[in-house]
């Protein structure tokens, strides 16, 4: 029996695979990233809206009290203040929750930062389903759609805490006058990235080679795609895994290159199926493609309130689900071809 059809063996295989990839929590690691950045760059300001503890900034505040601006629970004010700091020649890093940056204060991001050509780094923690028990007000599955749709933005979804640090460095060094959104998680997640790994804004990382199917993912689902490729290997299916950490500007070359080789593509993200990574990939392929593309993400209904692992499992955001979907697409396509 194949691995995917044998629940017991699959369960053991997946548990073992996960155990080999330890986890790190975003909140604490993010605090360390900010601290290191502040030490290196005297122009860096942290701007927050009563989420100093929640974004791990306590030590930052103790060491650099003059460079921590806490505006209280006032997210629109927070983005405007950050834009003003940027206009005054400082490098503001907004440290908040994804929902309150990309939804509550979305107009300030557009007009004060993007249209106004002001560089502001927006670190949105607790994104996706990572604060599942916070319910619909804290779960965030619309941020890629809102921030991708407005001109002059960069949208990055690091896959783990190590890549978050690399992305922050790249964002800091980026020469453009544009808001740069880093979509970050919350609790412990598997770590795939090593400190010296390459990271370039707009350039996907290929984690596995394969010509049967291409799995495109970002954020925590990159690990799930990586796991899916491992499962598929046991099925005799060679999967390429693209870590598409930058959703905008998207790596057209990497997508078109894969499109020339593979028989199917599966895109997975912890975001609405509308407007996120899956949509961005389809936009690249809009001139035509002759293979099926499946988008795994959130359907057009509000997810329940509950802990993140349960939600991901219930909503099919897992390595097993990605692998099943890939196999299904290939089976269909190949049986059609065989006919």
């Amino acid at each position, binding site marked *: 029996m194949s691995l995917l059809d044998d629940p017991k063996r699959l369960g053991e295989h997946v548990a073992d695979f996960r155990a080999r990839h330890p986890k790190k929590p975003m909140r604490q690691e993010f605090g360390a990233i900010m601290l290191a950045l502040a030490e290196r760059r005297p122009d860096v300001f942290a701007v927050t809206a009563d989420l100093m503890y929640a974004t791990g900034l306590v030590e930052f505040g103790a060491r650099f009290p003059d460079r921590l601006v806490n505006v209280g*629970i*006032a997210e629109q004010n927070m983005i405007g203040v950050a834009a003003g700091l940027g206009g005054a020649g400082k490098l503001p890093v907004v440290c908040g929750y994804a929902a309150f940056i990309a939804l509550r204060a979305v107009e300030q991001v557009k007009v004060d930062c993007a249209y106004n050509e002001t560089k502001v780094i927006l670190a949105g923690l607790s994104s996706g389903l990572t604060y599942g*028990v*916070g*319910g*619909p*007000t804290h779960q965030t599955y619309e941020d890629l759609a809102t921030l991708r749709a407005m001109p002059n933005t960069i949208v990055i979804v690091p896959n783990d805490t190590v890549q978050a640090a690399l992305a922050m460095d790249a964002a800091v060094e980026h020469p453009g006058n544009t808001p740069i959104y880093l979509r970050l998680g919350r609790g412990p997640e598997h770590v795939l990235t090593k400190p010296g790994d390459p990271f370039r804004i707009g350039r996907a990382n290929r984690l596995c080679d394969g010509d049967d199917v291409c799995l495109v993912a970002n954020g925590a689902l990159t690990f799930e795609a990586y796991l899916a490729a491992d499962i598929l290997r046991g099925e005799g299916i060679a999967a390429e895994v693209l870590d598409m950490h930058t959703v905008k500007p998207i790596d057209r070359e990497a997508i078109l290159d894969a499109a020339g080789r593979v028989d199917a593509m599966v895109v997975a993200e912890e975001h609405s199926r509308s407007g996120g990574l899956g949509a961005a990939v389809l936009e690249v392929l809009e001139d035509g493609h002759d293979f099926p593309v499946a988008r795994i993400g959130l359907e057009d209904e509000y997810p329940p309130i509950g802990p993140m692992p349960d939600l991901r499992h219930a909503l099919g955001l897992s390595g097993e689900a990605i692998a099943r979907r890939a196999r299904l697409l290939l089976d269909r396509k190949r049986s059609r071809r065989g006919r």
Partner: protein
Amino acid sequence: MTPSKGHNKELAERAYRVRRNAVRMGEVQGQGYIAQALDIADVLATAYFHAMRYRPEDPNWEGRDRFLLSNGHYAIALYAALIEAGIIPEEELETYGSDESRLPMSGMASYTPGMEMSGGSLGVGMSIAVGMAMGLKRKKSDSRVYILFSDGELDEGSVWEAMMSAAHHKLDNIIAVVDVNNQQADGPSTQVMAFEPLGQKLEAFGWFVQRIDGNDLDAVVDAFDAAKDHKAPKPRIIVADTLMGKGVPFLEAREKNHFIRVDAHEWQLALAALDEGRLA
């Protein structure tokens, strides 16, 4: 002079039971916004067992007064009152915060009978109160809109936008309570973002303002009565200074009590402390 001094034995018992319900729900999860539930219990007891008009068996009764929970994370406090009011069965408190429960961590109209709005994102309730109060007036309803919000929410501009419109539209059917427990996520509210002199600001915004000790039950009762009886065509607000953890001395003494974890054995100690206060 406090006219109602000492006449509120029954309400004190209600407040005790609201606190008890909240602590029991806290125990289910081992953590939560317990200190807030304890600080606001006297206000909720007065709202539900003295001031408001509603039918427990028919939470959607058209003639009810509305109660909006703008600070959705206080849901545990409101559930405790809704249980005491008979709107939610007492057994359900065992389900607090679990997957199939009608009692999620943030108050959601879609989940819970007696919840009039979906909260969790701060600073939005006052606008809903304005619209609701306006709608009720247009319908010639004499129902009132009660709204609870928190001192942290005073940071949000939207709250002040709504307060300005409430006064502009002379919405004398709004009775707001702001819980000044001087605490928000990052520390004492007055230190995170200074908001005093709050009473003067609210008066300048055109509201009928009373500032009271929100844990002095007699004062709370009098303030609700005065808010209802007031004649000027203004929205009414009660600024309630409260003590987090009220009624459980070891919780009152805690610092950083915005979201607290309590050790397993301490829940019984908390209940015992409430019992002690009840007898005193």
